[in-house]
């Protein structure tokens, strides 16, 4: 048995790197600083390591060759999932460039709420260490933070802070969803303030809050069931903060249509607060299963986040048109390559087109894909890099065991090689 310390996690979004694991053969146990999300990520048992065509065991090269045949004959292939490490995304984009695929990260509809804001008006944001050391007022919008990031409060709010005399004095306010547990309660028992409203009322509530921050008169007494006087007090609190932070989970905002307008209103309000002479920053939370990694690597490789089409031989970005689920259900795609190296439960959408899965070892299917190639997990089976939630810090993932599984990069490169019979374009 081996014990490994300071293990970074690609699962929990915040890039926790204080984990201790025990490795025995291919079994991993989280023994220190674990949480529900990381336990599920790290302790997942291995499944069948053999590649399969139509459910029958084949060699890796045989499976890669079959995958290449499907992709070669496809008119409009899609590469979905896109949940892997930096090197995996590099190989994925190289392959997509060669075959003219649509590339669509599985978390894009959530991330789109942030991207549409970034691309329309921008924002002022911060990162986790600034939150930890400076934040005196934290506003959580429309998100049950501790289910998204279980250790957020323990690590970033109730721990040492360089620039606060007493971390217990930090003020936490929830707007929209109430917290599901007690993580946001300070160690001394100070509970978070909750201004609860339905998800559907959030656009109205944040619009009123922004108006109050700007000093605009509001005649109504309530917005979304919240007393305007309470929102006024919140606006005053933000304007009086030394270093206010407003956080949200782009996928947690609850409404399916135009949640980006909530993000935009909040982000513009943060700019207003800074223009009124007070520091305030946003903290969009994402970073699970490689979604930020996909967007970052696609960003520097193509100029766009990870919903692009290469069918014209150069990348084209459209945040709606290249939604792979819609394309598949509309009959606009004829082969699906699903890449998911982190989560055995994140399976490809059920569809009638030929499906190739490059998936975390252990993934099981109701309907066997045409080709299944099990791969290792970045940060467990091989080294790699992954972005954490604040989108600035890339963590160096460790190799914890040798289970003989190939990496995403190795498999996708083998498929590209089988397609081309030649080396990559550089």
């Amino acid at each position, binding site marked *: 048995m081996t014990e490994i310390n*300071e293990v970074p996690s690609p699962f929990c979004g915040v*890039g926790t*790197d204080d984990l201790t694991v025990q490795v025995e053969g291919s079994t991993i146990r989280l023994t220190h600083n674990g949480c529900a999300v990381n336990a599920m990520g790290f302790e997942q048992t291995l499944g069948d390591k053999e590649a399969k065509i139509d459910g029958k065991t084949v060699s890796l090269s045989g499976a890669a060759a079959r995958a290449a045949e499907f992709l070669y004959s496809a008119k409009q292939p899609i590469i979905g999932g896109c949940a892997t490490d930096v*090197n995996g995304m*590099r190989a994925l984009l*190289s392959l997509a*460039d*060669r075959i003219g695929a649509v590339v669509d990260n599985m978390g894009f509809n959530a991330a789109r709420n942030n991207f549409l804001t*970034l*691309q329309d*008006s*921008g*924002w*002022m*944001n*911060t*990162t*986790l*260490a*600034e939150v*930890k*050391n*400076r934040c005196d007022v934290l506003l959580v919008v429309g998100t049950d933070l501790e289910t998204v990031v279980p250790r957020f409060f323990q*690590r*970033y709010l109730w721990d*040492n*802070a*360089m*620039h606060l005399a007493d971390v217990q004095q930090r003020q936490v306010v929830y707007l929209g969803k109430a917290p599901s547990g007690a993580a946001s309660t300070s160690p001394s028992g100070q509970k978070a303030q909750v201004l609860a409203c339905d998800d559907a009322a959030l656009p109205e509530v944040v619009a009123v809050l922004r108006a109050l921050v700007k000093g605009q008169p509001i005649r109504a007494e309530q917005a979304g069931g919240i007393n305007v006087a309470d929102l006024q007090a919140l606006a005053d609190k933000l304007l009086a903060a*030394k270093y206010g932070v407003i956080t949200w989970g782009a996928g947690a905002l609850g409404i399916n249509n135009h949640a980006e307008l909530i993000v935009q209103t909040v982000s513009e309000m943060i*700019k207003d607060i800074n223009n009124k002479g*007070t*520091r305030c*920053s946003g903290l969009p939370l994402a970073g699970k299963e490689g979604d930020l990694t996909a*967007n*970052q*690597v696609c*960003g*520097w*490789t*193509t*100029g*766009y*986040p990870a919903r692009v089409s*290469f069918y*014209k*031989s*150069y*990348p084209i*970005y459209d945040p709606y048109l290249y939604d792979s689920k819609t394309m598949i259900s509309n009959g606009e795609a004829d082969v699906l390559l699903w890449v998911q190296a982190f989560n055995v439960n994140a399976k490809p959408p059920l569809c009638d087109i030929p499906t190739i899965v490059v998936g975390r070892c252990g993934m099981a299917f109701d309907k066997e894909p045409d080709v299944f190639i099990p791969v290792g997990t970045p940060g467990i089976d091989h*080294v790699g*890099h992954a972005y954490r939630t604040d*989108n*600035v*810090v*890339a*963590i*160096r993932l460790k190799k914890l065991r040798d289970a003989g599984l190939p990496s995403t990069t190795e498999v996708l490169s083998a498929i590209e090689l089988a397609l081309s019979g030649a080396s990559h*374009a*550089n």
Partner: protein
Amino acid sequence: MLIKLTGGKVYDPASGVAGVVQDVYIQDGKIIGKPEQPADKEYDCRGKVLMSGAIDMHTHIGGGKGNIARTMLPEDHRIDPVPRTDITRSGNGHAMPSTYVTGYRYAEMGYTAAFEPAVLPINARQAHMEMGDTPILDKGGYVMLGSDDYLLRILTAKKDQKAINDYVAFTINAAKAIGVKVVNPGGINAFKFNQRKLDLDEQNAHYGVTPRQILQVLATAVKELGISHPLHVHGCNLGVPGNVQTTLDTIQGIGGLPMHLTHIQFHSYGTEGDFKFSSGAAQIAEAVNKNKNITIDVGQILFGQTVTASGDNMRQHANHKFANPNKWVCMDIECDAGCGVVPFKYQDQNFVNALQWAIGLETFLLVDDPWRIFLTTDHPNGAPFTSYPHLIRLLMDRTFRNDVLSRIHPEAQKMTTLASITREYTLDEIAIMTRAGAAKLIGLQNRGGLAPGYFADITVYTDNANREAMFEKPDYVFKDGELVVVDGKVIHTKWGTTHIAKPNYDASVEKDLKDYFDKYLTMKLGNFKISDDEITEDGRGSLTAHPTVGGSA
């Protein structure tokens, strides 16, 4: 294979050769003396101009703020798609091109190396990963210090210079950098304490430290550690009318220590005239000419759409009202630094923009020593790097320059001495600024020259009185002896190396740092340090360490 480049006119300032017809021989990636045996392959370079591959010593090609700029401006990519070919990857261009396109387009202009000047320690992995996806070019980075809480804490604690040197050397090693940059010294930190401006002698509200002190200790550290590249300084008050005095005070205040003042155009503004905005270029040039410890690059602006991406979130926030299109990003980052990304559209009929253009050119033309001034647009901040051939023509062709001058905002024409400056840069001076001088400044061994023993990074141009046409389309570009560009188009790709420095330090600094990381930061110290494997494990990257010089470490 033995390659002979026959009969070209060679400009090799590193060897003092200026326009002499010489044959150049290449073997195993390096330049060699005249061999006994006949060449396997010969290129007829008669009537052509030979220089070493150009080196961009300040260009934002890797790191988070660049990717924010890319992601924020899809409309800027849509106008410039770059299709895939059999040998090159697809991508997009214009102001902040994708990484592959960056590599190809630099090479197609005859550049073979480029250096990212603003590597945040905590974001260094990303900078290296982006540069690792930038083909053909050699690359490297200057790591940013000066607004990090750790440095300000040890200054407040009155730790000695040795402690600072150890920390600086540790950081250079951990981030795999070749130099050190400071951006708005202490100002990015002060912005987090809600200070909105910070003059050279103004104290950080929390730490009580001034920019002058930060510059002093960092410039001293760089010198004492024997880092070749002088402290790379983006000064206080970027873009503020009247900042010429700040810049002159900064030169004076460094007390003779080596210092590189970057994109100095943005720091050369006076307050004279009807619009309270005037050129300080003559005063800056005079100070640079007089103080031999100072080097500068210009950060020329050129008219058109671009995006500004800087670590200086204090000044970028102040400038957000000029965002065009109206969207922008500011970030505070990890008790380390920050960034600000603001799109700009420089217009020749805008008085300020027009005068900025003239101030940059005045600076180029009034600084005497081409070994101490470097050709940059601070890509993409003043203009995309793809505008360099146009800039070279402005410097080399007075008629062309005055023609453009005659079309800018009339009030700006009245506020510049440009029309009266007769100087035209020579090919030798261009070769100094963009090759030999840059290699010397960064401390690159065996790069930026054409003598035997140098790496065979070579650009061959057809001599053309239209210097823009000449420099935008070289006949041949060789990288490490391999022909990569013909007639201005990539015909073959390869991967360049990453240049780094590895100054020594007392390992005991890591003990205090470990405590600091454990207590305040969100990453373990062991996970913060970038390992060699991270650069090389994909089989494409490599590291080239350059020695420190005359340092006490």
